[in-house]
């Protein structure tokens, strides 16, 4: 060990770790602290109420509802996004056939830009865009198309985001639509690091596209898929901005709590109902759940590493 190595490393670490402690860890600790109080969010005074906020969560139907909805997001957003992204990435990199050897499908460059495009839109633009898509009268994009092709009735258009059955699927579609591009690029990058001769060997052995994908591509990409899964699970646990802007209710969640997620219920308690202590308890539950889900995902999907 060389002399002065640790002071050198420490010198680099002090500033970022300090910032991290002050702006990330300290607020977390404060949140946990507030979750044991009846703090209203508007003052410096509050009383310690022990585990009251947490016991209240057990009997709170809206909270249960939000949890269920988050679970639905948690199942469908990662699965759909990863499947689509993998498919696109595969086709754009090694899906092409003919001409000898492995190549992208024709027009891959254009597709890549088109698919990645949603990623550069901010969530605010996304919300406005999809408000127009899901608009509940004939002026909405989907309703307009349905009516134009004779499937919709102008007198009773589909109220997409005001329908208890449709609202969650509408939101999942937006999340998937906006996420696919990024994961496609992530998977593309990972695919490009796989040596070309592996694919060519598979091709020489007469493997079809499907076989190549499941036997060669997917196993070699497993690490990246695992990471994507964790990121998407975290996104699904949050989904705050989209739900709060697109759905009815203060901070969204409507109709009748059918699109309620933990984050929207948290914000309504914090900002509208003046129950910041309770909101902090919801925040802590979100934190613990997200942690658990990430750890479980990483554990459950662990595979033997393939060296190449």
């Amino acid at each position, binding site marked *: 060990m060389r002399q002065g190595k640790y002071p050198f490393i420490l010198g680099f670490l002090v500033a970022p770790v300090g910032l991290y402690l002050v702006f990330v860890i300290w607020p977390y600790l404060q949140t946990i602290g507030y979750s044991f109080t009846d703090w209203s969010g508007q003052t410096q005074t509050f009383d310690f109420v022990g585990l009251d906020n947490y016991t209240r969560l057990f009997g709170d139907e809206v909270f249960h509802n939000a949890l269920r909805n988050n679970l639905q997001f948690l199942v469908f957003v990662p699965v759909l996004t990863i499947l689509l992204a993998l498919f696109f990435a595969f086709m754009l990199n090694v899906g092409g056939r003919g001409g000898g050897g492995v190549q992208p499908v024709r027009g891959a460059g254009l597709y890549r830009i088109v698919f990645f495009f949603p990623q550069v839109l901010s969530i605010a633009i996304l919300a406005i865009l999809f408000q127009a898509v899901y*608009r509940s009268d004939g002026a909405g994009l989907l309703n307009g198309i349905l009516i134009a092709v004779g499937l919709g009735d*102008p007198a009773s258009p589909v109220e997409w985001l005001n329908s208890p059955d449709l609202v969650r699927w509408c939101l999942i579609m937006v999340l998937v639509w906006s996420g696919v591009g990024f994961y496609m690029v992530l998977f593309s990058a990972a695919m490009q690091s796989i040596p070309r001769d592996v694919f060519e060997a598979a091709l020489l052995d007469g493997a079809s596209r499907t076989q190549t994908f499941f036997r060669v591509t997917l196993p070699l990409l497993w690490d990246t898929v695992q990471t994507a899964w964790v990121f998407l699970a975290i996104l699904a646990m949050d989904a705050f901005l989209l739900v709060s802007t697109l759905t009815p209710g203060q901070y969204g969640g409507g109709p009748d709590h059918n699109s309620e997620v933990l984050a929207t219920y948290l914000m309504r308690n914090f900002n509208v109902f003046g129950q910041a202590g309770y909101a902090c308890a919801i925040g802590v539950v979100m934190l613990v759940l997200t942690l658990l889900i990430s750890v479980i995902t990483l554990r459950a999907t662990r595979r033997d590493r393939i060296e190449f």
Partner: protein
Amino acid sequence: MGSTEVGRRDLFKRAAALGLFAVPGVAALSACASGGGDGGDVIKRGPTSKENPFGVTKGNPLDVVVFKGGFGDEYAKQWESAFAEKYDAKISHLGTQEIRGKLQPRFNRGTPPDVIDNSGAQSIKLDVLHKQDQLTDLTELLDAPSVDDPNKKVRDTLIPGTAEKGFFGGKMHALNYVYTIWGLWYSGKLFKDNGWTPPKTWDDFIALMTEAKKKGIAGFAHQGKHPYYMNVVIMDLIAKTGGLDAMRAIDNLDPKAFVGNDAAKRSIEAVYEIVDKGLLLPGTNGLDHVESQTAWNENKALFVPSGSWLENEQLKSTPADFDMAFLPVPVLDDSAMPFHALRAGAGEPFIVPAKAKNQPGGLEFLRQMLSKEWSTSFAKEVSSLSIVEGAVDPGVKLRPGIKSAVAAVDACPVEDRFDYLYTEWYSEMDESIRGATSELMAKRIKPAEWLKKAQAAVDKAAKDPASKNNKRD
């Protein structure tokens, strides 16, 4: 070394994944954490007189934050320069839509501004602020001599009943400055072209909408994404049918406010007729206020519910010859109140925080707002009325919508004007009733179930010990 290298990369990857927790909802909380410390030096009162009842001393700073919404903030700047001139004050002005985001940290630090116009979608809930003793008691302002006539108290210069809107726990804590009326709105031109007369009874109302439907115009548009508006119609009908007692029952969290209240039952069933008979503008349940009101401006629907800010809000999408007009909510048979009765009340709450540094300055600013000079300049600037009685010179030219609203106010004696308070007092109950209304309008629940849901919201609010402090009569 190869294998350790992979291990390390793996470790970083996981750390990065776990580090992302900062992103979800929890991040919102970090911004709101309360801090310690107090406000520093407080400006003391100087000698008081009839002209200067709060003892404002010259040369002090005054910190004003106003909601910059439909009214803009130009009117406030005019007031501020008048104040600066009079008291040699150094004004710090902020016009913003994000009242909560900008001010919550300041309340928590104990360094709030001196005057706040706490309005808009991102206002801070006043019931919450009051519960935590963050608001100055404005009784002193009501008892102070008026600017225009030092022998009159400020409370005697206001439209009767308007100060009460700012009462929390029996005392005035907010000055709701703008006088607003609520009800239905229609296009005078559309009615004239078709030879229709505005309906006064609920039966005529339904009949007219049915007739319009035959001509391809929907009867009723409402701002479905924000059930607040539909609740105005429902609650107004309940008050008019059952009289002020029915309204008080709701505000006072009566165990029979909805279930077991005949007026509530008849009213909600009448409202449901609109849904049941297919008189709603198709899709209106999912539209927001801009979309639905614009559709109404395009004559796609006869009526839309709103307050008297509607005209200002819709200025850009209203055709020049639209001739916007106001209609009080039509009445049911054997209604306790007459047709001309309407919800009228003060809105746009101005507050002086309890921990304001320049509290005398803040109180004086509010007193000046209630002068003829300042309220006239407000009416000119934003075409709206203030709560100062007869303060606006007849010379101020008003647009058709607000003109028809003023006529409706003049036709309605003060004892027939009413205003609900539960929306200010009980945010959670309000939100629950809004949810029930959404369900009713979408035909997913029936009137009987709406009553049950609304009553459940009332009963829940009644369980909060803090609700004991609110009582109206």
